[in-house]
């Protein structure tokens, strides 16, 4: 990774520290600054209220020319998060063809928060969950809350 990329990650961390979006905590390891651990509270107005989710953000060597890679380390029942041990996300800003170098991690974190409140059904990575969200909201709510209780407390 280039010195410029490291400098930019440091700067972004500085900005995040100064102005952390509410409901978030960032663990930063100066020895390994390309991997951030973020603790995210389920937003109050979402089905994930009361849950605490661990996310991992990995910066590729080409950052900021390539997008960071986001993964939910805590299992979550959500149409835009892959339902496996990886918890991958691949939409909007995070897609390599959508990402622009001036985009910042904080925008990614805000996007994730918004998605917890309102999933993006049209770009779902888990269509069955997306479908349930659309057709059978009660059932979706039940599973989402159940998973929060089971995995995210």
């Amino acid at each position: 990774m280039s010195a410029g990329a490291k400098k930019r990650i440091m700067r972004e961390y500085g900005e995040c520290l100064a102005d952390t979006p509410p409901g978030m905590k960032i663990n930063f390891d100066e020895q390994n600054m390309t991997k951030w651990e973020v603790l995210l509270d389920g937003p109050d107005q979402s089905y994930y209220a009361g849950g605490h989710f661990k996310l991992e953000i990995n910066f590729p060597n080409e950052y900021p020319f390539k997008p960071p890679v986001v993964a939910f380390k805590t299992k979550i029942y959500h149409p835009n998060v892959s339902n496996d041990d990886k918890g991958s996300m691949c939409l909007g800003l995070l897609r390599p063809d959508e990402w622009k170098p001036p985009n910042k991690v904080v925008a990614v974190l805000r996007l994730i928060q918004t998605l917890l409140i309102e999933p993006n059904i049209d770009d779902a990575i888990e269509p069955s969950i997306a479908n349930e969200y659309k057709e059978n909201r009660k059932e979706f709510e039940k599973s989402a809350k159940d998973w929060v209780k089971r995995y995210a407390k």
Partner: protein
Amino acid sequence: MAHQESEERAEEWAVLQAIYPELEIDPGNPFAAHMELMVKPSTPLPVTFEQVVERLAYLPPLHLHITLPVGYPEAPPSVTVSTVPSWLPPDVTAKLANQALLLWEEYGGGQLFTYISHLQEAAETTFGLSELTLPSDLKPDLLAYSIRTKRELFDKETFECEVCLEPKKGSVCYRMQRCNHVFCIACLQDYYNNCIKEGDVNNVKCMSVDCGQSAHGSSKKKDRLISPKELLQIPISIDNVDRYAKIKRKKKIEADPTIIYCPRSWCQGAMRTKKYPKITNVSEMDESDSEADEPVAEVAESQDVAAFEKRRVGITGMDRLAVCEDCNLAFCQICLASWHGDFVRCEPRDSAQLTEEDQASLNFIMKNCSPCPTCSVPCQKSHGCNHMTCFQCKSHFCYLCAAWLRPENPYEHFNNPKNKGCYQRLMDMAEGDMAQGDIQFGGRRGAEQIADFWEQEAMRIQMEINELDS
């Protein structure tokens, strides 16, 4: 008396210099002073030099020379206005100078600061001129002045580069020609060199998030690629710009089914065509009309249908003649032999007479990648999920089985138990084929190869067992 009125003149200078520190008193005459006023029209002024119109953002400054005569403020101040070179018409300079007199006639002395501020305001509208026609010998000076001034002022400004997030002086920044976004040169070079190195020429566009964001979501982008000429100005090295222009052209040619390639195995150049002129000098290429996300299909569609038919069996005559743009070989598009004249009947030939190297490279491609179901471009996954979007034609497809996927819902494929091979395997091998330093999976063709291997292995084991038995 003389003493008193000279004091009044000195006072006038003191007032003016307090407001306009750039006012300089002539060394030879304590009652004469001069200053320069910047002429920056609020919109660039169209200037015609022998039928060629140039829009100038800056014009050489207005020289203002004021002399306060004996008897001032009872006697009028003497004012001259001029430009070097003399681009402002004499009637305008005379009018401007006269305004100082009018002001003096109406209000008496002590009004020179109002006059100067009036001149400054008038400079923004180029003193009421909406256009100008000048002799062409002034053109080099005026153009150079405008460009130099623009550069000097830009260099002094400070910008925050949105990529490295650091404040940078204008002298190490570059302003994009089309959209005026500013980035530091180091970041621009890093980004474009990286794109060009990876062959990702469709990302050679302005980095700003405001560019290419369509109003209705993210599906259709309309931003433009940067022209080779502009890349050189940033500056990107000529070698990289050359590579950029070549890849861009190659992509267009490859997407065009009417192009036939030279049958000489050591050459394989494309046939000559007016549609894709050969690149001669990248520094002259300032076209930026190519759409970044122009779908390949559109290019093919725009071709003349008749031209496409030409390759079909049965066409005769001169229509079959093609000339290689690299080695100038004249050959027949149908039989791929060197040109046999227009009366010879010929049959289409299988072009698969490859050299060993080509065969080896073709074998590797066949074994280690999935082809795009639409344009057959071979692909290998470096990381991410198995839902692929073709780099070339934007088709959605499955990396595991190379099936075409519906763009509205590409993920359905991985969630349908009927698709046994791919069900629930969206994120399989997300680290990429080469994650363990070795090829783990080679796409659909690789999967076939593995199946082949195990079949042969099973056969071998069976034969061993048979041998043991006998």
